[in-house]
């Protein structure tokens, strides 16, 4: 059975989740590999959860919310962007393959863009293959 990457997506309710809803109402088809977790805002995402998602066997992660300046809560996405810049370097330092994590903005009007984002990430991760070596990383910490 060909390798089908598992993608976990942390999305904000007001923009990207609504955008994904629009992808649905527009009947735009995209890869079924993604599982979406709805949060009030990207500001709500605790980036430690990304490591836990890899631990649970995710091969790729998407974090997406409102475009800068469009956040329903004014500044939630700014906090997320700042945390992302720091956390990406930390993940790099820890040896996590940051090519597997995509941080993006998808607005409530960008149904087509959500489909394109999912397809692109799925294709990239499929190329990178299953994320086996995360387990050594995790176990290395344990011994």
């Amino acid at each position: 059975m060909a390798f089908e990457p598992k993608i976990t997506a942390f999305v904000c309710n007001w923009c990207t989740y609504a955008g994904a809803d629009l992808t649905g109402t527009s009947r735009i088809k995209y890869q079924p590999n993604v599982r979406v977790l709805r949060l009030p805002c990207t500001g709500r995402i605790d980036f430690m959860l990304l490591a836990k998602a890899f631990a649970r066997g995710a091969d790729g992660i998407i974090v997406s919310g409102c475009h800068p300046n469009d956040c329903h809560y004014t500044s939630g996405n700014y906090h997320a962007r700042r945390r992302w810049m720091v956390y990406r370097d930390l993940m790099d330092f820890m040896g996590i393959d940051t090519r597997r994590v995509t941080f993006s903005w998808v607005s409530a009007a960008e149904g087509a863009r959500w489909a394109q984002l999912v397809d692109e990430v799925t294709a990239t991760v499929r190329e990178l293959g299953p994320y086996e070596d995360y387990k050594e990383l995790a176990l290395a910490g344990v011994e």
Partner: protein
Amino acid sequence: MGSHAHAPTAPDTLKARIREHLGVNLNHCYQCGKCSAGCPVAEDMDMTSSRALRLLQLGDPALDRKVMESEGIWLCLTCETCSTRCPQEVEVAKVMDHVRTEALRAGLAHPRSRDILAFHRAFLDSIRVTGRLYEIGLVANYKVRSRHFLKDVALAPKMYLRGKLPLLPHLIKGRDAVGRIFAKTLGKGR
């Protein structure tokens, strides 16, 4: 937000081939007539660009034939005014170019296009042989093909006196390279 389009255009029509080769979707044309309005030679055309696009977008081989047999498509100056001003960004000039090449290949070119084709073929003959245009060769070849032997006869001496008529052609070194280009493209007669 309708569901996915299912019925692809019938393959053996100009509309489908234009879609495939030029990436131009004739469905975009909503017949506003702006291309015909701006076309410098529209008043002389039996088939204006907007009417041609209408017949082509219906995807019917009989109508394709009507367009290819028209005289109008041969009057096109390829001045790109139509493509420049089209509100739907249809590349009308490119479409007309393609229609002409297919009309030629299908042997449907209008009789009144004979002179125009004679000129273009004479032009290309000159390049294929020497690599560059040899104007005297072009005019002579054109006269033989078009039978208009007396055309611009009075002009030749005036041109020569003004040093605008070099007598000898200029043969470039890469003549065979140019010959190969002709063989690999025009020669294929697709």
